[in-house]
């Protein structure tokens, strides 16, 4: 067995080094590995070839190669003897340009964007308290478990309808579309989460399928997508009403935090009571002020009357003869009558003269 593999390996080793063209998929690079691995794929017929390249050499090229890139690889076929696996050992690597898939995706993306399918105005708000959440997911446990456990922890009263479907391979796009439609027929479903864990560029391709992207945009209820990892942006993410970086983030988007919600409601109720009490207090104070003014009214009337009296008294005083006397005039009386004319008295008659201060008696010398 070992000898057989060694024989094949040495025979392969005699083959010349060659240039091979293809599309990079399933690129695997880890710091603790001595080599970088990827699969080279022929976009025409789907033929695949495993490739390895020393990590130092791969990094030194600084090509920033990613899944979907079309490359030229210069290398030598070899056999990994321990496992009997055939692969191409790359000695050099050149970028050929974007892979056909990516270019096609880019064209599709521009076309759909031009139609306005990704427009911000199309995005609908998610219900703040969904009646029922539809969950489209593969039967792989991780994404589904993440969504369900986050929903249950955050909002225990939530109701979820789980629809498992293909999320990978040629049937995936069609199955997801059918599942979306089936969920929309359920009367209570008012938001749908499409969750799929990470995968290779190709694994996620169904989520950029034009029919699926259109189905998501046209879905009668809002859709949240959580497909692949943060850096993957399948086109369905752009058409969805909300995009989540991971399944648990999607779960947080579709249900409120019950504890927070209850606190908010209770705060509103406290505010309601405080506001009403304030309105009551304000009215009571207004009433009290009125009452106080009412109480002061009689006193005001008396004060006003008093000052009017003072005024009258002043005028009265101004009119009294005393004031005239003070200006230097005198009042002359004879036989207790005020003397107004010379003919009122006889010469030698006694008269009384009244002044501002005191007075005196006198006799008439002559009359005129």
């Amino acid at each position, binding site marked *: 067995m070992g000898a057989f593999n060694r024989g094949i390996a040495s025979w392969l080793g005699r083959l010349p080094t060659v240039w091979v063209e293809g599309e990079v998929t399933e690129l695997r690079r880890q710091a603790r590995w001595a080599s970088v691995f990827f699969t080279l794929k022929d976009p025409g017929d789907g033929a695949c070839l495993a490739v390895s390249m020393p990590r130092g050499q791969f990094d030194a090229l600084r090509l920033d190669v990613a899944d979907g890139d079309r490359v030229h690889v210069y290398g030598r076929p070899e056999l990994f003897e321990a496992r009997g696996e055939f692969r191409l050992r790359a000695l050099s690597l050149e970028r050929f340009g974007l892979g056909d898939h990516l270019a096609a995706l880019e064209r599709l993306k521009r076309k759909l964007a031009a139609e306005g399918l990704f427009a911000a105005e199309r995005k609908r708000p998610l*219900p*703040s*308290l969904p009646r029922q959440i*539809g969950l489209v997911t593969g039967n792989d446990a991780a994404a589904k478990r993440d969504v*369900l456990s986050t929903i*249950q922890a955050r*909002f*225990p*009263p*939530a*109701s*979820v*309808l*789980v*629809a*498992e479907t293909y999320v990978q391979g040629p049937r995936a796009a069609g199955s997801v579309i059918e*599942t979306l439609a*089936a*969920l929309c027929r*359920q009367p209570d479903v008012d938001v749908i989460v499409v969750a799929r864990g990470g995968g290779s560029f190709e694994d996620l391709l169904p989520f950029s399928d034009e029919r699926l992207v259109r189905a998501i945009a046209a879905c009668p209820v809002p859709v949240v997508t959580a497909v692949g990892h943060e850096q993957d942006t399948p086109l369905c993410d752009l058409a969805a009403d909300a995009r989540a970086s991971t399944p648990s983030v999607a779960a947080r988007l579709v249900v409120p935090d*019950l504890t927070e*919600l*209850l606190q*908010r*409601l209770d705060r*509103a*109720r406290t*505010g*309601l*009571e*405080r*506001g*009403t009490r*304030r*309105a*009551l207090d*304000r*009215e009571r104070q207004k009433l009290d002020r009125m009452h106080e003014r009412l109480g002061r009214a009689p006193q005001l009337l008396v004060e006003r009357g008093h000052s009017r009296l003072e005024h009258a008294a002043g005028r009265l005083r101004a009119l009294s003869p005393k004031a005239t006397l003070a200006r230097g005039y005198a009042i002359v009386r004879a036989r207790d009558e005020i003397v107004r004319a010379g003919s009122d008295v006889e010469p030698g008659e006694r008269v009384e003269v009244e002044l501002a201060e005191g007075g005196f008696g006198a006799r008439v010398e002559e009359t005129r």
Partner: protein
Amino acid sequence: MSEATFEEAQRELEQIVHRLESGEVPLDEALRLWERGEQLYKLCRDRLERAEGKIEELATRVEATREKP
């Protein structure tokens, strides 16, 4: 009233609180708002308490619907 969604009820409740706390609301109006606010608060609480979380599989539900005559 029973047709109001949770978010509508919650929004109306918060608007009422806002009016009561900021505006000079006449007493009659304040009492009317308070009554309405209490109603909305109870509606929201009921919605939360009445809902019981359940996780179903769509396939099971579709089969159940098919079995019905």
